Each structure stands twice: as structure tokens, then as C-alpha cells.
């Protein structure tokens, strides 16, 4: 099992590191290949290794006490899966499941700490990557707290249905229109359905309570 140095150099923590340092770091890594649907780690369990996604797609999600699954994000190649729990020493903040065949590079926590002490410039890159992650999370908090995305999505649905009898929208298009992420739109649609304002019927979004939807849309007007 050989860790590909080119793949390693594309990861945010190691991008731009000189070849000798990359070569040294490579020796600390292990590769893990995961079949589709397999769970990589579980929320609230202790984390002992940091995982980078090299190929495939991983679903990061939380599960409510009632067993309801909420997708936080879909990780793509180059993404770090569990940096928070590795650096704060707490348990996994989410669960991770492979949605395709997945290749991961992992590094044990103590080996990572050793690398950080040996190569302070790598620590700088990690701090920048963590800061970028924090910025994304703050944007998400902003979307969920202030933007009232369900109201915006309600408005988009009403505007769309009003223009032409046969208007179609993808979740990504709704996200672009609402100025938010696709995952937030998915959550909003679920919330509108729970409030019995719409019904998701395969490729149809059926507005079942137009007045209720209008009231919600007016809250963001």
C-alpha cells in the first residue's frame, strides 16, 4: 500500500510543502479503502485518526434521538472528514458514511502532532484550513439564523409557480437564488413539508397550503 505523494500534496494541509517534508509526512499515513454504504466513523465515538478523502464521496451526517438523519455535507476529494474532533480531543461531531467506493488517507493523532511539532509551517497550513472550515460553519450559522432560508425558498416556490404552468427548478438553482448552500435548501424543503405547506412527490413539489407559504414568504419580504 503506497501513499501517492501527488495526492498528498493536493490536500489542504500539505499543499505547497517542499518535497522532503512531504516524503517524511507520507510515511506517517495509511490508506483505507471503503466500499459503498460502509460507515467510516460514528457520531459521539472517540476519534483516533484524522481522515482525508482522496477519491469518492462521503456523507457527513447527524442522527437525532428519534433516528432522523440530517446530512451536514457531502465531502469531496481533498476534504478533511473529522478535523474538529482530532484537534479538540472530543468525540466525533458527525457520522461519516461512504456513498460511493471511497479511498481515504488516515494519520494517527499522535503522528500528526509529531509532524506539526517538526514542521511548524505545516501547522500554519492547518490553522488556515481550520479557519476556512470555521468560516464555512459561520456562513451556515448565518444562513440558518438570519437568512430565514425556508421563507426564501417559500418565496422562490411561489414566484416560480406563478410565472408559467410548467416551471422547473433544481435544489442547486433554488440554493443559488436563495444565496445559500444546496444542503440548506434540502433542509428547508423538509421543514416546509413538515409544516404541511408543501408535499414532495418524487419530481414534483406540490404546494398544498399556498396561504401558509405566502405568510412564511412575507416574513422575509
Amino acid at each position, binding site marked *: 500500500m503506497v501513499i501517492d505523494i501527488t495526492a498528498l500534496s493536493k490536500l489542504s494541509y500539505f499543499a505547497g510543502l517542499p518535497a522532503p517534508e512531504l516524503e517524511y509526512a507520507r510515511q506517517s499515513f495509511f490508506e483505507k479503502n471503503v466500499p*459503498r454504504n460502509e460507515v467510516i466513523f460514528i457520531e459521539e465515538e472517540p476519534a483516533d485518526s484524522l481522515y482525508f478523502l482522496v477519491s*469518492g*464521496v462521503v456523507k457527513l451526517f447527524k442522527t437525532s434521538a428519534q433516528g432522523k438523519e440530517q446530512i451536514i455535507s*457531502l465531502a*469531496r476529494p481533498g476534504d478533511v472528514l473529522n478535523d474538529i474532533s482530532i484537534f479538540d480531543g472530543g468525540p466525533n461531531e458527525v457520522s461519516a458514511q461512504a*456513498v*460511493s*467506493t471511497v479511498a481515504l488517507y488516515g494519520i494517527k493523532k499522535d503522528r500528526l502532532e509529531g509532524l506539526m511539532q517538526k514542521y511548524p509551517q505545516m501547522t500554519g497550513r492547518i490553522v488556515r484550513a481550520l479557519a476556512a472550515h470555521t468560516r464555512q460553519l459561520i456562513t451556515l450559522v448565518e444562513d440558518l439564523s438570519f437568512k430565514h432560508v425556508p421563507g426564501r425558498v417559500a418565496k422562490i*416556490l411561489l414566484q*416560480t*409557480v406563478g410565472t408559467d404552468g*410548467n*416551471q*422547473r*427548478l*433544481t*435544489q*442547486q*438553482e433554488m440554493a443559488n437564488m436563495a444565496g445559500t448552500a*444546496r444542503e440548506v435548501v*434540502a433542509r428547508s424543503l423538509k421543514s416546509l413539508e413538515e409544516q404541511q405547506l408543501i*408535499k414532495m412527490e*418524487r*419530481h*414534483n*413539489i*406540490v*404546494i*398544498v*397550503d*399556498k*396561504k401558509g407559504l405566502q405568510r412564511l414568504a412575507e416574513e422575509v419580504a
Partner: protein
Amino acid sequence: MKRMPEINMQQCNLCGLCVEVCKCGAIVIQNQVIVFTKAELCGWCTICEAVCPTGALTCPYEIVIKDE
């Protein structure tokens, strides 16, 4: 006929991720083209759209009103 997700082959790079993530096995690559089969099994989960790295695959919703 049941509608299926849509593919723009000019944008598609044939990475095959949509084929891999489709839980119902409704997507296949045939002769370098993405083909949707088993429409009756597709539950419109939209995961194929979510993972498509080029935006070639889309799962559009039709917006309709039923309360009037």
C-alpha cells in the same frame, strides 16, 4: 412514462460517481454515455445531482399547486 434525472453529456466527464451512488442502480454508463434505466425504481433522492462534480446531471422539480 416516469421522468428521470437529466444529463448534459457535453458537461459530463464520465467520472461514474452518479452510477456509484445511485441506490436503485438506475444509472449506467453505456458506450461512453450516461443512461438512466429502471425509472420505476428511481425515488428522486437527488444524490446523483448532489455528487456530480460538473453539474451535468440535474434532478429538476416541477412546482405545482394543489390547494386551489
